[in-house]
C-alpha cells in the first residue's frame, strides 16, 4: 500500500488540514497519507475534513506527544 508521510509538526490548524488536502489532490484512490502533527486540533479537524470530502479515516492517535492521522484517498465518482 502506497503511503505518503507528511510532516506537519509545529503547524497550527488549519495548516495541517491544508497540507493533507494538497497531498490528496495528487494521489490516486486507495493511497494513504500519514500526517505527523503537534497541534492536537488535528484529531478533530482532519477526520472532519475527510468525512466531508469523502476520504476514509484510517486512524487518528496520539504517540509520544505527537498526533498521527492517517487518511485513505477516495476521490469518488466526479
Amino acid at each position: 500500500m502506497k503511503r505518503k508521510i507528511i510532516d506537519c509538526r509545529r503547524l497550527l490548524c488549519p495548516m495541517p488540514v491544508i497540507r493533507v488536502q494538497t497531498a490528496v489532490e495528487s494521489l490516486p484512490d486507495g493511497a494513504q497519507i500519514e500526517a505527523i502533527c503537534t497541534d492536537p486540533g488535528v484529531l478533530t479537524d482532519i477526520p472532519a475534513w475527510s468525512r466531508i470530502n469523502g476520504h476514509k479515516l484510517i486512524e487518528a492517535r496520539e504517540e509520544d506527544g505527537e498526533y498521527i492521522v492517517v487518511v485513505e484517498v477516495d476521490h469518488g465518482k466526479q
Partner: protein
Amino acid sequence: MTKQRKAAALISGGLDSLLAARVMQEQGIHVEGINFYTGFCVEGHTHAIRKKDRQKEKRNNALWVAEQLGIKLHIVDIVEDYKQVVLNPKHGYGANLNPCLDCKIFMVSKALEWIKSKDFDFIITGEVIGQRPMSQRKETMPVVADESGAEDLLLRPLCARNLPETLPEREGWVDRQQLHDFSGRSRKPQMALAAKFGFEDYAQPAGGCCFLTDAQYSVKLADLWRARGDKQYEMDDIMLLKVGRHLRPAPHFKLIISREEGEGNFLRGYRHQYPHLTTVSHPGPLALIDGDVSAADIELAARLVARYSQGRSEEEVVLAFTDIEGHQQALKVRPLQPHEIPREWVI
C-alpha cells in the same frame, strides 16, 4: 435535462454563510464551500496554545458548517497574497486593523479564479446589507462585486431581493422570489431561518471572522510595525502576537512572556529563532526576546521576567539567557517591582 448549476460558497464558519449556502441547496444548486485561511483567522490555533482552552471541545466552524450542509469544503491558503490586503488596504481599516472591505473584495476575486478553474457557475456569500458597519453596507455591495471582477456572478442569497438582479437570477438558475431581503444589524431573521432549517449550535462571532477585529491584537500588530519601521509581517510574527504577555521596555526590543504552561510549550518551539530567558532558581515563564539586545537590555529583561516568576518577592532570582546559537549565560538579578514597570511597556 437542464444542466445542474454549481455555486461556490464563501464559508467563514458563521451562521450567515451557512444559511446562504442552504438557501441555494433548497433551489437545487450544487454547492461547494471555500474557506480562505489568511493567518489571522480565529479558527484553529489558539486552542492548541493555551492549555486551559484545550479542555473545551473545539471545532473548526467552517468544517462544521460544511458537514451540516453535506458539502465539500476547500480550504485555501492565501497567507502570502493576503499581506497586500492587510498592509495597504485601498479602502482603509475598520475600527481596528481589519481591512474588511478590501478583504471581501480579495476573497471574492480569489473565489472567481477558483470557479473559473473548476467550471462552477457563480459565487455566493452570506453578506447582508447593513450587517457590518464597514464592509456590508448598501454602497459597498456593488464595490465588492465590481472590484473583485465577479460582477453579476456574485449572488448574496440573504439580501438578494434588495440588490439588482444577478446572472443566476436572470438566467432562471435560481428563483429570485425565493431569495431573501434581510437588511440591518438585527440577527432575528437569520435566527428564524436557522430554526426553519433546523440548525442549532451554530457559531455567531461577535466582532468578525478574524483577529484583526480584536483591539488588543491590533495594538500589538501596530506596535510591531512601528518598532520595525516597516509594515511587514511573517507568519511567525502574527502567530506570536496571539500568545503571552507582550512588553516593550525600549523601542528596539520587546519580550513575549508565557502566562501558563501551554504558552510556554508553544514559545519553546521558537527557541532557535529568538534569544530567550528562562528562570532557574524558581519556577517561572519562558520569555522570547524580539530585537537586538545589549548586555544592559538583557539584564533589564531578566529583571522583568523574574517579576513574573515565583521568585518575584525574593531578593535574587537566577535566570538563564540563551542566544540563538544556543550559548547560555547565567544571570542573578533582583526582580523588578510593580511600580518599576511603566504602563507604557505593556503592549
